[in-house]
C-alpha cells in the first residue's frame, strides 16, 4: 500500500507492507537516531513525534501515520541543541543508547510545560528507561538548562 508521511519536513511517499512499523519506516528513510529497544512499548528508545506528540514508533503502524507529520531527532537538532549540552555536562549518558528517545521526549515536555518542576520532569520522562544511570544526571542536566534560562 502507498503512504505519504511528512518526515522531518519532507514529504515521503513509499509503498509498504500493511504490518510495517513506524520505527522501521523512519529508519529505512535515514532516521537512525530512532532505536529499537524493548519492543514491548516500555522503554521509550523509539520515541518520535507524530503530529507533535511523542509516541512509541515500535508500536505504531506506518500505515496509521499515513497523512501525518512525523519528526525524529534528525529533524529537531536545533531545538535539541538548546539543552543536550547541559545533559552531556553532567556525564548523564554512559552508553548513550537511550539518549535520542530521552531527548525527543524532553523536547515534548518543554513544549508542553516550559517550566516543569523536578517531579513533573520525572513523571513526564518515566517512560524513558536508562539501564546505565540512575536518571539523576539527566535530571540535573535538564534542571541546569531550565535554571540557565532564568539567569
Amino acid at each position: 500500500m502507498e503512504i505519504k508521511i511528512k518526515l522531518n519536513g519532507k514529504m515521503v511517499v513509499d509503498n509498504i507492507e500493511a504490518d510495517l512499523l513506524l520505527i522501521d519506516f523512519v529508519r529505512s528513510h535515514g532516521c537512525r537516531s530512532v532505536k529499537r529497544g524493548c519492543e514491548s512499548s516500555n522503554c521509550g528508545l523509539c520515541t518520535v513525534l507524530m503530529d507533535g506528540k511523542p509516541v512509541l514508533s515500535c508500536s505504531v503502524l506506518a500505515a496509521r501515520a499515513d497523512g501525518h507529520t512525523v519528526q525524529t531527532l534528525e529533524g529537531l537538532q536545533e531545538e535539541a541543541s538548546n539543552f543536550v549540552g547541559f545533559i552531556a555536562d553532567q556525564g548523564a549518558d554512559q552508553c548513550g543508547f537511550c539518549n535520542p528517545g530521552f531527548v525527543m521526549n524532553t523536547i515534548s515536555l518543554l513544549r508542553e510545560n516550559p517550566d516543569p518542576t523536578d517531579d513533573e520532569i520525572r513523571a513526564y520522562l518515566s517512560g524513558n528507561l536508562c539501564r546505565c544511570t540512575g536518571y539523576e544526571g539527566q535530571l540535573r542536566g535538564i534542571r541546569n538548562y531550565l535554571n540557565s534560562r532564568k539567569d
Partner: protein
Amino acid sequence: MVTIQKYVRAKTLEEAYTLNQNKRNRIVAGMLWMKTGSGSMNTAIDLCDLGLDKIEETEEQFSIGAMVTLRQIELHEGLNAYSSGAIRNAVHDIIGVQFRNSATVGGSIWGRFGFSDVLTVFLALDTYVELYKGGILPLEQFAKLPYDNDLLVRVIVKKAPAAVVYSAMRIQRTDFPVLTCTVSQVDGQYRASIGARPGRAMLVRDDEHLLADGITQQSAEAFAASVAERVPTLGNIRGSAAYRTHLIKVLTQRNVLALGGL
C-alpha cells in the same frame, strides 16, 4: 509481533463492523497490547478516521470516543474535575506519556484486561458503553460479557453526583499493577471497584450499608473487610491471592477514608 496482510481505515462504522465479522480480521486501537502477541490477521481495521477521538461534555454526561487516548483523559479538565482527579490518577502511571498518547480508552475497555486501571476507575462511576449493534449498556454488565464481534463506539459517563478516589499498588512505577482500587459515592451509594485481582475488574456495592452512618475509621475498616470478602483473588507472578486480598482491605480502607476527608 502479529502479522497483518491488509490494513483498512474504515470509512463508516458499518464498514468496520462488517469487516470485523470475519474472525481473521481485527480492530486495531492503540495496538500496544495486540503488538505484544503473535499470530496473524487478514485485515487490520483502523477506526482512526471515524471521529472517535473526541471527548464531548454536556450538562448530563461525558461522551468519550473509543479512539480517545489515555493521555486525553489524563489531561481533560472536565473529566478530572468531575472525578476529583481520580481518572488522572488512574492512568498517570501507565508506562509513559508516549504510551498514553497511543493507548485508547476503547482498546482498554473493550479488552477488559485484568490489569486495566482504566476499567477499574470507570467501573466505579455511572458509566455505560455504546456498542454499534448492542446499543448502550452499563459498563458493569459489559465487563462481565464474553468477547464478540461488535464494536465499542463510545464510553459514556453520566454526571451523577459523585466523589471518587483511586489508588493502585505497583511493585514499581510504570509496571502493571498488583491491585487497583476505586472507591466512589455515586448518587449517594458507596461502591468499590477492584481490578488486577488479577481477573477483570469487578464492582461491589455497600449493600450492607456499612457506610450509611458516615465514614469513620471503624466503618471504613468494616467496608474494606466486606469488599475483601466478596472479591475473589488469584495469585500470579506479581503477588499471591492472599497478598491481593490483604491489599484490597488496605487500599479500600485508605480510599474510603480519603473519600471522607479523613
